[in-house]
């Protein structure tokens, strides 16, 4: 099918107990096997398309009720309840008929996150099944999968999977005799983190610059091509398949009452076994990092952990016991975000970590809103100066005074995303900043996280 080099993915997927009722495997079935993407395997070995068949036997509104009953919250970043989001789509009335669209956010750009990729790589049919279910529930007849431009080989795989589904009448006209029509188009991005933001994604999908839109109007009333649109993350949509197969109430038994189901956590940084781990929500962070991922490779102490992708505030030791669910992570001042967990050991310079993250936001700001465009750039410049040993003590007050002028003052949350790491690292590692300033150099010259900072 593909002209691309095939390669065995070395990432970890399995651990003792995975696939048992205590640790259900709903999202990573067959992961690691490069042939797993095929329809025949999905149907034969992974209960493929049973969820769709059940959904098509129900009323669309009942499918939305199943999603609501499952309690699943969006896996893309904000954790918004998916069933509720689906229910916002306007329904046809006697005198108004709508063209509704479904959009899958496969832009996966949040540093530390690499889970959507594995779903598309190993289980593209699960995503397709989830999208048909979502399309049926909201009565959309066209869906778009917006994939980041770098994933060209995944796009070929997705398109091959879509062709397979078409041949089996799982996509197209009158799906499985139900009378429901649904088509999927894969759209390739071109390298811009901001296009993961849902309204920027819509602009990009329409062939424009990926600049976020003013909300309201929200996508459910005016989204892609001016029509009502629902945007969900890959993992959220793929989860609709097992949810409809097993029933929302059954799915809701996994995890904790307000944080149901499993999610794929991405572990990276200073750990022995980096990779993907699917866990029920509510497992303590340290269990994942130490017991499953093996802790640091050389027994060094862990200094900080980023719990939910680069945009989330860093945790230090007192929060390592935090259960991985949306609410507790939020109550402890960070966010569950995209499930990207980045482990940082004691020999790491936190000023460099901060600078590396802020440089990313400065680079990726779309430039529309002054606070984000100028603020992130200024933070980067000040942090560079501190890291290079040219900082002044008053820089710390300047940095601290900047985040309240960015967060909440912009069209989208990219500015807020920069403020999470900025505030938390400066707040929790102030002594490291002061050390750089007083000694006029970085105390950890062997730690190199930023190109040409020394």
């Amino acid at each position, binding site marked *: 099918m593909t002209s691309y080099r095939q390669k065995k993915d070395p990432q970890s997927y399995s651990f003792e107990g995975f696939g048992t009722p205590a640790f259900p495997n709903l999202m990573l079935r067959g992961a690691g096997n490069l042939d797993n993407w095929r329809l025949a395997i999905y149907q034969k070995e992974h209960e493929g398309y049973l969820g769709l068949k059940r959904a098509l036997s129900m009323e669309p509104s009942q499918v939305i009720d199943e999603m609501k009953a499952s309690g699943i919250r969006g896996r893309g970043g904000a954790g918004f309840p998916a069933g509720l989001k689906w229910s916002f789509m306007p329904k046809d009335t006697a005198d108004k008929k709508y063209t509704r669209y479904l959009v899958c956010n496969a832009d996966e750009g949040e540093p530390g996150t690499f889970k959507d990729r594995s779903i598309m790589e190993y289980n593209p049919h699960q995503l397709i099944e989830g999208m048909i279910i979502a399309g049926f529930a909201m009565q959309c007849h066209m869906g778009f999968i917006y994939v980041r431009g770098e994933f060209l080989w995944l796009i070929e795989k997705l398109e091959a999977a879509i062709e397979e589904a078409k041949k089996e009448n799982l996509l197209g006209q009158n799906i499985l005799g139900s009378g429901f029509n649904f088509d999927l188009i894969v759209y390739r991005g071109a390298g811009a983190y901001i296009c993961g933001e849902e309204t920027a994604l819509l602009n990009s999908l329409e062939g424009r610059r990926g600049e976020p839109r003013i909300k309201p109007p929200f996508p459910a009333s005016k989204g892609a091509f001016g029509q009502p649109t629902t945007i969900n993350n890959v993992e959220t949509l793929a989860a609709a398949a097992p949810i409809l197969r097993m029933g929302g109430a059954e799915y809701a038994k996994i995890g904790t009452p307000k944080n149901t189901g499993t999610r794929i956590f991405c572990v990276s940084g200073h750990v022995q076994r980096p990779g993907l781990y699917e866990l029920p929500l509510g497992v303590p962070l340290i269990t994942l990092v130490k017991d499953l991922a093996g802790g640091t490779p050389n027994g060094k102490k862990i200094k900080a952990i980023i719990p939910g992708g680069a945009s989330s505030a860093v945790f230090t030791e007192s929060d390592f016991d935090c259960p991985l669910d949306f609410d507790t992570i939020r109550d402890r001042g960070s966010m569950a975000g995209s499930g990207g967990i980045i482990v940082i050991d004691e020999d790491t310079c936190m000023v460099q970590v901060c600078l590396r993250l802020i440089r990313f936001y400065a680079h990726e700001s779309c430039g529309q809103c002054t606070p984000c465009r100028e603020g992130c750039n200024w933070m980067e*410049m000040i942090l560079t100066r501190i890291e290079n040993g040219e900082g002044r003590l008053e820089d710390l007050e300047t940095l601290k005074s900047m985040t309240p002028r960015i967060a909440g003052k912009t069209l989208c949350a990219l500015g807020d995303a920069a403020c999470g790491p900025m505030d938390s690292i400066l707040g929790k590692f102030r002594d490291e900043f002061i050390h750089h300033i007083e000694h006029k150099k970085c105390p950890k010259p062997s730690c190199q996280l930023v190109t040409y900072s020394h």
Partner: protein
Amino acid sequence: MNSSSSSTRSALPLAPGERLPVSKVLTLSPEALKEIDQLADKFPDRLAATLPALHIAQREFGFVSLEAMKAVAKALDIPEGHVYGVASFYSMYQKHPVGSFHIQVCTNISCALNGAVALLDLVKKKTGISQRGEVSSDGLWSVEEVECLASCGSGPCLQVNHDIYDEFVNEAELDRVLEACRSGQYREWAK
């Protein structure tokens, strides 16, 4: 400001008096025009084909030159200014020529924690490239520092052209990748 940022920044806006490089190819082939036309019909609105058409143009022209942008505008019958705006917004549209093997090294946080900065230096040393926009004299190499590629668990990683990533890249692995490029095992840029 330190000198590093310019290497991650896009080549636009241009400095006063600077011109975008001119491509050897100046028009889209009939096959490409047909492909763009079919694409445009797929979407609810022709404008939506701007991004895919620019990908096609990059393949045809080798990079997204001004002529490539104009050709896309003409093929889709949309304003040239719109196409320029889009082409300049997205980092994957190369506004300068690249080598047959355009090596993109992720230097974002997870990869950096595992040695991406040293890897980037090594890539530059072995290819003789010092900054973005430069192509080695034999036309083989160009190097770009990129943001997170969504391969953070297998960092440091890099991408050659638009192919599947190379992961856990240490010096030995890098040597293997470069040799594989030289010996024709990797697809060339825009081929």
